[in-house]
Each structure stands twice: as structure tokens, then as C-alpha cells.
């Protein structure tokens, strides 16, 4: 069974998306959660570039990828700023320990 590059890229996108999802679920660190989100956004970009081969002569996917990258940069900047703020306030970057809204004391 032979796989061409388009299919292989689609499989890589699905794989990286699941990896990012599992990173978000299993890690106990806010920065690792941001890394997982970046990985999932890149998996979406891989899907876009692979599906663009189904429609030759159209380049909509490349423009959409550029805008996804812009939004990802905004998300990373605001996310890191919020992580730093939370770290200064709680002195921890473990999301399980930030439970002020859950516990009443």
C-alpha cells in the first residue's frame, strides 16, 4: 500500500492534533497548555495545505493559513501575558492549584 504526500500530510495533521489535545489534557503547566494549542493550530494549517491540492489553481488555503498564523500570534501573546499575570498573583503555574472560583473559604 503506497501513500502519496497529500494523504501522509493529512495523517500527520490528524496525529499532531491528537498529540496537542493530549498535551492539553495531561500536562500540569500553563505554558505546556499553550504549546499544545500552538501544535493544534499547526495541525489545522497542515490540513489546509493538504486539502488545497484537491482544487488546483485555487490559493484560498494559503491566505487562510496566513490569517490563522496571525490569530495564533495574537493568542500566544495574550496567553503568555495572562500566564505571567497569574504566576505573579498565585506564585504557581499549575492550573490545578488555581481554584479560587471553585472553593469557598
Amino acid at each position, binding site marked *: 500500500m503506497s501513500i502519496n504526500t497529500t494523504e501522509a*500530510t493529512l495523517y500527520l495533521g490528524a496525529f499532531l492534533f491528537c498529540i496537542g489535545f493530549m498535551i492539553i489534557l495531561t500536562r500540569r503547566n500553563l*505554558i505546556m497548555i499553550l504549546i499544545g494549542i500552538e501544535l493544534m493550530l499547526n495541525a489545522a494549517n497542515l490540513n489546509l*495545505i493538504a486539502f488545497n491540492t484537491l482544487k488546483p489553481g485555487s490559493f484560498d488555503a494559503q491566505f487562510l493559513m*496566513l490569517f490563522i498564523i496571525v490569530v495564533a500570534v495574537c493568542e500566544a501573546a495574550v496567553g503568555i501575558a495572562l500566564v505571567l499575570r497569574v*504566576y505573579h498573583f498565585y506564585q504557581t503555574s499549575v492550573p490545578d492549584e488555581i481554584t479560587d472560583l471553585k472553593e469557598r473559604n
Partner: protein
Amino acid sequence: MITYVLIVVAAISGVSILLMKDVFHAALSLIICLLSIAGIFVSFNAEFVAVVQILVYAGGVLLLIIFGIMLTRRDSATFSSSSVHLYTSAIIGLLLLCVFVYAIGNIEPAEYPSTLSPEALGRDLLTTYLVEFEVAGALLLISLIGAIVAATNLKKA
């Protein structure tokens, strides 16, 4: 051929992000993963997006993430303590992967697209996609100002 090598490198570095104990090592693996994804973009004739990927992701976002790690790191990033949590997330991830693989199996693969030159891309960006371009610029400005305001302590300054 080199595309397959890049795909394998990206997959391996993705797994190593998941398995690395240290956050800093995970960030370094993320750099390798993003660079190989940029190489895959080149093999799909999307050179401009690949350059943007290297400049913005491997340059900018990773710099932000590494600064974030250095400013917050005190406890090393261990995995979630409860094993039920770990098993559940592994099962959910594998189920998601099965769904994706099943869906991809139904797709008819096609040939490569013709290449898009950077000047044609720039012309389209400033004519057809002008509104989106301006909205993206405004979003970038607003979110960066917001990030600066959120990260600075206004009472002390």
C-alpha cells in the same frame, strides 16, 4: 522523498513534546516540529507561508514561549497526578485519532497545485483580501496592546 522524512521528523518531535518532562525541552522539540512543518509547506509549493511560519513561529512565538518559561519556571512540568486522568486522556486522544484516520481514508488524493508567486500573493492580499488584511492588522495591534497591559503592573508603574 524528503517530504516523507520531514513528516516523520514532525511526528517524532510531536511525540517527544508529549513525553518530555521538562517544559524547556518540550519548547525545543516544538521548534523542530514547526521547522519541519515549514519544510512540508515548501514541498506543497507554499513558499511564502513557509517563510512566514519560520519567521513568526520559530522566531516570534517560540521566543515568547521561552521567555514565559524562564519567567515562570519553578516547578518542573510533571504530568497530571491521577492515573485515571492520564488513561482517560490517552483513550480520548486515540479515539479522536481513529475518527480522523477513518475520515481521511475516504478522501480521494489529488495532484499538486500550481505554484503561487509571492508578488501574486501580495497583490491578492491587498485587493481581494483587503478587508481581512486590515482586520488582521487591527486584531494584531489590539491584542499586542492588550498583552502589554495585561503583563504590566499598572499600579506600580
